[in-house]
């Protein structure tokens, strides 16, 4: 579809404060999500009673072992009727694509005001050891005994293969961590704002070589909600609409269960799994990577930012290291500013939702680290088991 065919827009974003892991208690998932939803409605100039659709991702899971539920939100928030309630499958790979699910509901006439929400608490189970804590299953019995205890441990072997195949250096991962820390330094919402030097990076504890502490995202609590509606309706609301230019989710069998499988053939192994989604996304938007002004790339682990830069066509496959080390992703002076909000490495980790929030602010022109004149923002979901997803947002004329 062309940009002229854009028919839906993001009209509201709301969030709780971001908390270090475990510090959002005694609030509950429902409280955190409810606060984010109410804040998103307030931002949009809508009543919560206007919501008639829920478009989740991660199977409506709230982090690790908790669940969100539409009926519970209706009961506690007083939402009178819903006409759509669905979720993308799997995990954080669907974060950006959940806006596409909302868009589908609106274009089908199934719902008019659709909320996407993620709430996360890690008091009971932290991200870092989620695979070690999982109950044994027939399929994970082929993975769990190895001691690859968390997602970063799993992605460390993809990273090592990328370094082996293409000569990628740890200096590139350091540049990702440092540039995002720099972006977080002036943000009140960011949990890590102190500067990070190359020495800091190379002196950090190795967790799963070749990855060190600063390659891993923060472990945080909080909630973010986003409201999507038709562009017509959006024009009557409080904020400047942020048009949804294109959304895509899915992926190829070569990636599949990805690092929970490790069978990815050829180039797919040392990748983000996003190349097929990127192709559909650009085709649907009618744009090319060079048209993107700011990229909010899911950064659970720094090397996956590098591999997404390749898969989204900002550089050639295998050249991500050199590209990043050239300073190309910096907010100041970079050719494609990446994670201007500090991302999950330095601001907070809400399973991809902070990237959507930042893209909305960039397209409204209200971001803390505003990219001057930015007209198109790319948002990606997590490199993870399929579906992975991408989203392009635009600036309203």
């Amino acid at each position, binding site marked *: 579809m062309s940009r002229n065919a854009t028919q839906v827009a993001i009209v509201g974003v709301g969030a709780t404060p971001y908390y270090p892991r475990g510090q959002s208690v005694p609030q509950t998932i429902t409280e955190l999500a409810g606060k984010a939803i109410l804040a998103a409605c307030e931002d949009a100039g809508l009543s919560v009673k206007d919501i008639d659709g829920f478009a989740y991702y991660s199977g409506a899971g709230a982090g690790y072992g908790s669940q969100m539920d539409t009926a519970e939100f209706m009961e506690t928030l007083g939402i009178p009727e819903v006409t759509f309630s669905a979720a993308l499958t799997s995990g954080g790979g669907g974060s950006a694509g959940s806006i596409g699910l909302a868009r589908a509901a609106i274009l089908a006439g199934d719902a008019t005001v659709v909320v996407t929400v993620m709430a996360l608490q890690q008091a009971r189970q932290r991200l870092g050891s989620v695979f070690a804590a999982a109950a044994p299953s027939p399929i994970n019995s082929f993975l*769990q*005994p*190895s*001691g690859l205890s968390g997602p970063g441990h799993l992605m460390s*072997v993809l990273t090592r293969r990328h370094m*082996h195949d293409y000569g990628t250096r740890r200096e590139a991962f350091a540049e990702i961590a440092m540039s995002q820390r720099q972006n977080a330094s002036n943000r009140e919402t960011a949990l890590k704002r102190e500067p990070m030097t190359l020495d800091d990076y190379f002196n950090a504890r190795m967790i799963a070589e070749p990855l060190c502490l600063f390659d891993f995202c923060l472990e945080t609590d909080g909630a973010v909600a986003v409201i999507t509606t038709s562009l017509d309706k959006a024009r009557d609301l409080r904020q400047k609409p942020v048009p949804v230019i294109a959304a895509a989710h899915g992926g190829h069998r070569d990636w599949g269960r990805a690092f929970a499988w490790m069978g990815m053939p050829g180039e797919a*192994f040392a990748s983000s799994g996003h190349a097929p989604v990127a192709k559909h996304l650009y085709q649907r938007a009618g744009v090319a990577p060079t048209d993107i002004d700011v990229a909010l790339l899911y950064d659970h682990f720094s090397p996956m930012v590098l591999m997404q830069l390749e898969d989204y066509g900002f550089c050639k496959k295998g050249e991500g290291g050199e590209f990043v080390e050239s300073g190309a992703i910096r907010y100041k002076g970079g050719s494609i500013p990446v994670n201007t909000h500090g991302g999950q490495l330095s601001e907070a980790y809400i399973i991809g939702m902070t990237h959507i929030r930042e893209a909305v602010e960039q397209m409204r022109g209200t971001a803390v680290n505003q990219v001057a004149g930015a007209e198109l923002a790319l948002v990606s979901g997590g490199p993870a088991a399929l579906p992975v997803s991408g989203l392009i947002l635009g600036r309203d004329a």
Partner: protein
Amino acid sequence: MKAQALPADRVRITTDTSTEPFWQAAKQERLVAPKCAACGTFRLPPTPFCPECQSTEVDWTELSGRATVFSFSVVHGFPGLPDITLVPVILDLPDAPGARLVSNVIDVEPEKVEIGMELEVLFSPISDGWLLPLFRPVARG
């Protein structure tokens, strides 16, 4: 310090009808992989259908136990075992092309492990009487 595997009492597995033959063979210190009886494609983990031709017929093929390191990590610590050093490996199996096994290399200093290294299988006790395939460097003659 040489790379270790997780202690036996920290490793539990479960099986289903697709995976049970793999673990029963391991209990007899045999490394096997499912080969599609219709088209000859190997797959791991064992799953109900051949992804190439959708057949459910499987030839459980006994492998030599040789493997090549495709990639690996050096993991420092595990929940409850802060001082352990593990070297999880992603292995290509020369006699089951296309299938990969995730395991650990032991009996080697982590810094000596490299992509392309040749390994051989050994079997190590885990919980509930099962044996887990692990790998060590091929003895140089």
